[in-house]
């Protein structure tokens, strides 16, 4: 019976994910699209929970929904995106794209459909089966163990990738442009009195005049 609830949850969450993903690419308002992407992430996190990948599910929500998507929404709201200009030429190419998409879809259905009829499904052929874990199984611990042993090379490379991303972002955005105003702390500290204060000797005409009176 428990199995049935899980299967039901899986289909429910998957359907929600697919529908929300469709809305992401079809909705006219970019803010709505971003919010639907959040919903997609939530449903996928649910699917991962069903797979007993609790850490990844939480990380998906914390990192993607909590940080990345909020930032993304912020940027989308800040930008004034002209949707009409983005859609220029869309209908001109639509028939061509639609034909291609239909051909691709039919091909995919044919290939995957024939795979099912052949009796060897996605996992059936490889003899892979779902492993059931004990109640005290820690997904986080297992993930950590794998990352630092079997996948340490890929993990380090991911770190290199992030470093490259940081360097690229700084190299592309941090530069001196003419006309921008910014503080130069070194110049502020090194300033001399002579640079700012000018002593002017003013002849005391006023005093002389009062003396006359």
């Amino acid at each position, binding site marked *: 019976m428990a199995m049935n609830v899980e299967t039901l949850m899986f289909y429910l969450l998957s359907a929600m994910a697919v529908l929300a993903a469709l809305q992401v690419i079809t909705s006219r308002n970019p803010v709505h699209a971003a919010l639907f992407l959040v919903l997609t992430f939530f449903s996928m996190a649910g699917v991962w929970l069903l797979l007993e990948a609790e850490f990844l599910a939480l990380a998906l929500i914390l990192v993607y929904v909590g940080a990345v998507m909020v930032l993304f929404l912020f940027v989308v709201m800040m930008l004034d995106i002209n949707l009409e200009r983005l859609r220029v030429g869309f209908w001109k190419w639509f028939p061509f794209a639609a034909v291609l998409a239909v051909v691709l879809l039919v091909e995919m259905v044919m290939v995957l459909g024939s795979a099912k009829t052949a009796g060897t499904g*996605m996992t059936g052929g*490889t003899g892979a089966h779902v492993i059931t874990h004990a109640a005290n199984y820690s997904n986080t611990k297992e993930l950590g163990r794998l990352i630092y042993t079997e996948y340490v*090379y890929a993990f380090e*490379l991911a770190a*290199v990738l992030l470093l490259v*991303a940081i*360097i*690229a972002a700084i*190299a*592309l955005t941090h530069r001196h442009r003419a006309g921008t105003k910014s503080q130069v702390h070194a110049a502020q500290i090194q300033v001399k009195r002579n640079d700012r204060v000018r002593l002017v000797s003013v002849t005391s005409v006023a005093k002389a005049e009062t003396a006359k009176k």
Partner: protein
Amino acid sequence: MSYLSTLTPASAEIFLLVMACVILIVDLFVVNQQKTPTYLLVQFTLMGLAFITLMTHQQGAVHLFHNMFVSDLMSDVLKMVSYLTVSIILVYSRSYLLTRGLFTGEFMVLTLFTLLGMMVMISASHFISMYMGLEVMSLSLYALVALQRDSATATEAAMKYFILGALASGLLLYGMSMLYGATGTLDVAGVSTAIKHGVANPALLVFGLVFVVAGLAFKLGAVPFHMWVPDVYQGAPTPMVMLIGSAPKFAAFAFLMRMLVDGLQPLMGHWSNMLIILAVLSMALGNISAIAQTNIKRMLAYSSIAHIGFFLLGILSGGIDGYSSAMFYIMVYVLMSLGAFGMITLLSHEGYEADTLDAFKGLNQRSPWLAFIMLLLMFSMAGVPPTAGFYAKFSVLESIVNTGHIELAVFAVLLSLVGAYYYLRIVKLMYFDAPESHEPIRIQPDTGLLISLNGLSVLALGMLPSWLMSVCAVSVQQSLLLR
């Protein structure tokens, strides 16, 4: 044996990563506008890499990091030529970038990270490390193209390169996930054994294969996935184009060898048919479109598409002959394109880009020696004996004829004849037309020496190709999983 000493085969990668980080910090303290200390440090790093790769070379294939990393003769040879290529690019691009204010520490560090990505790809024997290497390389290249922020064309080129590159990565990943679904493993050797033992679902395998080949074709710039190539070549700064069009081809060759030849050898019937389509279309479209170009960078872009088609012929003909001829071809192609783009950077000066065909008019009157070098390079690209390009084309054709695809060989020769037109047109412009400007060409001594060596090596390789050919043959033979 301690854990660190087991890492010896990967010490070149580790050294490069450490040095790239060191250079990143050292560069902050370099006040010199010419960035000479950073530049020398980068060149020293490349020499150190070559030394380490020579020293750590071992017989046979050494696997590391749970089969994610492999070091064999092919990977060492390809890494050595990659170091050489990156070093040559830095020499050529130095004065070009200095006059445009782009010769920064970031440029050099990103170039080193591109090299690191290529090295990871060259030594990858696992889908994850292949993909990670590809991403490290691509991300650095996107940033390098975008580095010239004030140029609208460079920004446009960077956007196109980035978006289509991301799409290609997506296709590749989707294909890899399908292969994983079919075989249950991401390890190249594991995939190959799973297919051989018949546990994998054949329909799903071919389905994944289509996406993998499409993703690779995007990265290689083969027709019909070539759209980004001309725009990126034309828009990006010339040194970046030199980098995109040269060393990554070695990494792509290793990628193809490990992915298709080692991992998916049992599906060769399927992928060689796909490669035939890609090769024929690339040669046709590349050679014919190049005729209409007036911008030499754009012309070289179409020429690179045509050359990729020829290179794919070598891969699809299979066997040690086919693979080694493809490896030889790609090495010769990189040498030629380095020379051609190097010539563009030499003829450009402050405020002037020598990227039109008109820039080459009457070059013989301005500098007979440079014109002669360009003549050698163009002859080699066209495949005129006795240059290296002739021998490269010849060995690919030989292997394709041996597999019985005579019609493909005839087609390739006919399209090479078409291609000869636009290469020889440059020779005609240089020798028989009047120059547009009589401005003297100022060349730094190091770049002058290098371009001479580059041009003459094309000639020398054409005269004595057998040693490089045998290096390619031995390295391919030693690295093949299925003999």
